[in-house]
C-alpha cells in the first residue's frame, strides 16, 4: 500500500533539468537576506503599523500598547515569528546552505575555512536551541490568532462590511501563515507522530493517526508554505506602510 507521505519518483523531464547548485543558496541569500533587511528597517524605524482598520502583521498583536510603550512597538512581537522561522526545519536547510555553506549544495565541497573549525551541527549554542522549535510554534499560534482577528477587522470599515485590496492581502496572508504553521514538523510530531502504534487502544485508527496523516500531507509542502507566507507577510506590511505614507489609497472593491 502506498504511504501517504512518500513522494513518487520524479518524472523523466523533471530529472533531466537540474539547475546549477548555486541557484538555490543565491535565491535564499537574496530573498531571506532582503526580508531581514526590510524587517530591520520596519521594526527600528517605525512605531506604528496601523492604517484605519488594517494592522500590519509586524505590529500585531499590539503588545507594546498593552504595557504603554510607544517606541519600537514591533519589536515586542517580531521575535516570535523570527524564532519560529529560525528554528523551522525547512529554513534550517535554507540558511545552512545559503548563509553558512554547510554545504552550499549537495556533494559540493565546503569552503576550506570550514576544515579548520570543528563541525558541531546542532549540538552547540545557538543551533541546539532549534530543539525547542515546538515552543516557538506555541507562541506562533498565539500570534496567528491575533492575525486572524486583524483579518476579520480588515473587512469591517467605518460604514460596515466592505472589501478593500488590503482586506484581500491580509486574508491571503492569514491563510498562508495558517498553512505554514499547521504543516510544521513539530506539530506533526505533536498530533500523532510520536506514537508508534495508532491502533493499540481499540484496533481502529486513532484521532491522532487521522490528524498525523492530514498534517503529513500538508507537511510535504511545508517549504512552499514557508516561502509563500514570508512573501505574503512582506507584501502585507509593505502595502500598509505605503498606505500610511500616503503613496496611494486603498482601492475598495465593494
Amino acid at each position, binding site marked *: 500500500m502506498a504511504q501517504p507521505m512518500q513522494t513518487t519518483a520524479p518524472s523523466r523531464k523533471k530529472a533531466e533539468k537540474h539547475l546549477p547548485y548555486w541557484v538555490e543558496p543565491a535565491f535564499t541569500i537574496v530573498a531571506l537576506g532582503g526580508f531581514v533587511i526590510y524587517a530591520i528597517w520596519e521594526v527600528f524605524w517605525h512605531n506604528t503599523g496601523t492604517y484605519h482598520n488594517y494592522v500590519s502583521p509586524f505590529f500585531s498583536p499590539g503588545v507594546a500598547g498593552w504595557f504603554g510603550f510607544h517606541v519600537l512597538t514591533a519589536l515586542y512581537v517580531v521575535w516570535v515569528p523570527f524564532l519560529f522561522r529560525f528554528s523551522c526545519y525547512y529554513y534550517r536547510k535554507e540558511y545552512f546552505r545559503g548563509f553558512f555553506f554547510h554545504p552550499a549544495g549537495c556533494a559540493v565541497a565546503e569552503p576550506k575555512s*570550514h576544515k579548520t573549525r570543528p*563541525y558541531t*551541527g546542532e549540538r552547540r549554542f545557538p543551533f541546539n536551541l532549534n530543539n525547542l522549535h515546538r515552543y516557538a510554534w506555541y507562541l506562533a499560534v498565539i500570534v496567528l490568532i491575533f492575525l486572524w482577528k486583524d483579518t476579520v477587522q480588515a473587512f469591517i470599515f467605518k460604514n460596515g462590511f466592505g472589501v478593500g485590496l488590503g482586506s484581500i492581502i491580509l486574508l491571503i496572508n492569514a491563510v498562508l501563515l495558517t498553512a505554514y504553521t499547521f504543516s510544521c514538523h513539530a506539530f506533526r510530531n505533536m498530533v500523532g507522530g510520536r506514537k508508534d502504534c495508532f491502533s493499540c487502544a481499540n484496533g481502529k485508527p486513532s484521532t491522532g493517526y487521522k490528524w498525523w496523516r492530514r498534517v503529513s500531507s500538508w507537511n510535504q509542502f511545508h517549504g512552499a508554505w514557508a516561502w509563500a507566507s514570508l512573501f505574503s507577510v512582506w507584501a502585507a506590511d509593505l502595502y500598509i506602510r505605503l498606505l500610511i505614507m500616503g503613496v496611494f489609497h486603498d482601492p475598495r472593491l465593494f
Partner: protein
Amino acid sequence: MSEEIVLSIFRGDAAGGQEVEYRVPLTPGMVVLDAVHQVQAHQAQDLAVRWNCKAAHCGSCGAEINGHPKLLCKTRLDDYVGETVHIRPMQTFPIIKDLVADVSWNFEVAKKVPAFQPSVPVPFKMQQFDVDRIQEFHHCIECFLCQDVCHVLRDHNAKDQYFGPRFMVKMAEFEMHPRDGGDRVPMLAHEAGLNMCNVTKCCTEVCPQHIRITDNAIIPLKERVADQYWDPLRALFRKKKAPAATGQSVQG
C-alpha cells in the same frame, strides 16, 4: 554511424590515480553501467566496478556521476548527450580500486544499531496503517549514496560522531515499529549523533528509492529526542507519571 559518448573514468587506487577517457557508442536506453561494461569488455579489462542486479535493487553500483552520487545502473546516458560523463567512486569512503569504494564502515555501524525487540510475543498481528510509515524505510537498498552525500561524513569525516542518514532510517524503522519495545532515543541523542545533522536534505535528494529520509525519518527522530531531552513541560509530565513503565533503553 551511432553517436558516441565520452566517459572519463577514474582509474587508480588508495595511492592515487586519475581520470582516463573512453569513447563508447551510444545506444537507445543505455545507462552508465552499460557504458562502463562496454569499456570493461573492449578497452580496459582491468577496470574495477561493483555491480550486481543492474535493476536499481541491490544498491551495489553507487558512484559519482559528474559529481552527483547516483546508481550507475539507474542513470541514463541520454541525460548527458553532448557532454563528457565523469565517473568517480564515492568520495566519502576509501577507494579500493577504480570505481570500487570500501563501504565496510557502514557494516560496522549497522552492528551497533539495536535490532528489533518485540514488545509482545511473536507471532503478532498489526494493522496495515500502523506499518505504512515504516514500510517506506524498508525500501532502502543500502546503496549508501545518502552516506556519501552527507556533508557530516563527506566534508567533516565525523564518522566517529554520526552514524549517517542510512542508519537514521534504520533506527526510525525500529523505533516507529508498533510492536518494538526498545528505546533507541538515548542512543540517537548521544552515540548515533543525530544532532550532527543540520537537515540540509541532501540525503533525500540523492536517494534512488525516493525515501523522504529527512522529513520522515531524521526530523521525527529529532522530535523524539526533543521530547525526551529538551522539552521541560514533557519532563514535568514524565516526573508526575513516574514510575509508569516506559520502553526499555537499548545501548548497542
